[in-house]
């Protein structure tokens, strides 16, 4: 505990100090500590999430001032700047990359309300809305969807972007989206930063590109294969290629040198024929050409 932290603690009421102590003690028990955004998560759902994390990670929510104090006491000063808005503390012994993946995967769609800012482009998809003809078609058109009445119901004729990311949701749009059951938000624990064994990771670090790793595996395997074959190191998986390569080399030599070998003869005959035809293309005079090659 730093001198500074000690000085601060003196100013806290006892119940707050107890909460800070408890939090900081908890943080000390894990290898990785992170900050998660909780915006838009109803408290019931938050309870479920906390339960689902059990065994993987510990999620605690407290007042931001107390969370900051606990982070400082536990030596996680790097995380303090991320404690902003509705956030909680998460602690785990899990691989932070795996934790990020898990949290992202657990995010669920949620409706968006009037006055909220769209986190991404909001699209009303092409198709039958299932709504009977009525004033709703006008409401759809009003928010910018290409809608009309067809076959006894209201149809959206094409994917229609009705709001761009960063723009505010209007009352009308919120109503339309609600009517259609469109849930444009992704709600869940939003990992903002993690310190794992002393190293700070932000979401960009944690968002691993699995495809890139897959491609690295392919590259690594291909390189090893190239090396094994080029260095003529036989393994079960490369020896067929080595054999084929040796065969090809012998064949190439045999054809180049026109070696009289039974196996090579069909190809040598084919080669001679190909050469003859190649030469024939250079001959302009029909009369000089064999009948087979005259036009």
């Amino acid at each position, binding site marked *: 505990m730093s001198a500074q932290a000690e000085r601060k603690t003196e100013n806290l009421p006892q119940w707050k100090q107890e909460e800070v102590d408890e939090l900081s003690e908890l943080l000390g028990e894990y290898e990785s500590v992170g900050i998660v955004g909780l915006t838009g998560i109803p408290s019931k759902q938050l309870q479920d999430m906390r339960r689902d994390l059990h065994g993987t990670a510990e999620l605690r929510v407290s007042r931001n001032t107390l969370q900051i104090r606990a982070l400082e006491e536990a030596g996680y000063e790097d995380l303090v700047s991320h404690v902003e808005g509705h956030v909680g503390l998460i602690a785990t012994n899990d691989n932070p990359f795996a934790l990020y993946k898990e949290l992202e995967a657990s995010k669920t769609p949620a409706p968006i309300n009037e006055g909220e800012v769209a986190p991404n482009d909001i699209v009303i998809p092409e198709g039958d809305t299932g709504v009977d003809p009525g004033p709703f078609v006008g409401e759809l058109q009003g928010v910018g969807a290409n809608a009309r009445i067809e076959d006894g119901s209201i149809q959206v004729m094409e994917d229609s972007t009705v709001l761009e990311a960063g723009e505010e949701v209007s009352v009308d749009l919120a109503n339309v989206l609600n009517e259609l059951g469109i849930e444009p938000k992704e709600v869940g624990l939003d990992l903002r930063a993690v310190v794992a064994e002393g190293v700070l990771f932000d979401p960009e670090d944690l968002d691993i590109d699995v495809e890139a790793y897959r491609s690295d595996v*392919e590259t690594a395997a*291909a390189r090893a294969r190239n090396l094994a074959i080029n260095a003529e190191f036989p393994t079960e998986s490369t020896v067929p290629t080595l054999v084929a390569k040796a065969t090809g080399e012998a064949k190439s030599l045999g054809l180049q040198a026109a070696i009289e070998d039974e196996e090579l003869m069909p190809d040598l005959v084919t080669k001679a024929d190909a050469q003859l035809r190649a030469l024939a293309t250079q001959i302009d005079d029909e009369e000089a050409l064999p009948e087979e090659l005259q036009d």
Partner: protein
Amino acid sequence: MEYVYAALILNESGEEINEDNLTDVLDAAGVDVEESRVKALVAALEDVDIDEAVSEAAAAPAAAAGG
């Protein structure tokens, strides 16, 4: 690529591709291991079918040149 090679050895030997094993292999090779790279690799490979990726690499040998 040394981290990926290490994972491929473990894959062939049948050992689990986890942080400890990767670190051991890389250590033995004199690599100055970065823990965060090991962690990221372990997490990423969880979603990669290594055997499939390897056999695809063999099927398209020319692609290897790109590596």
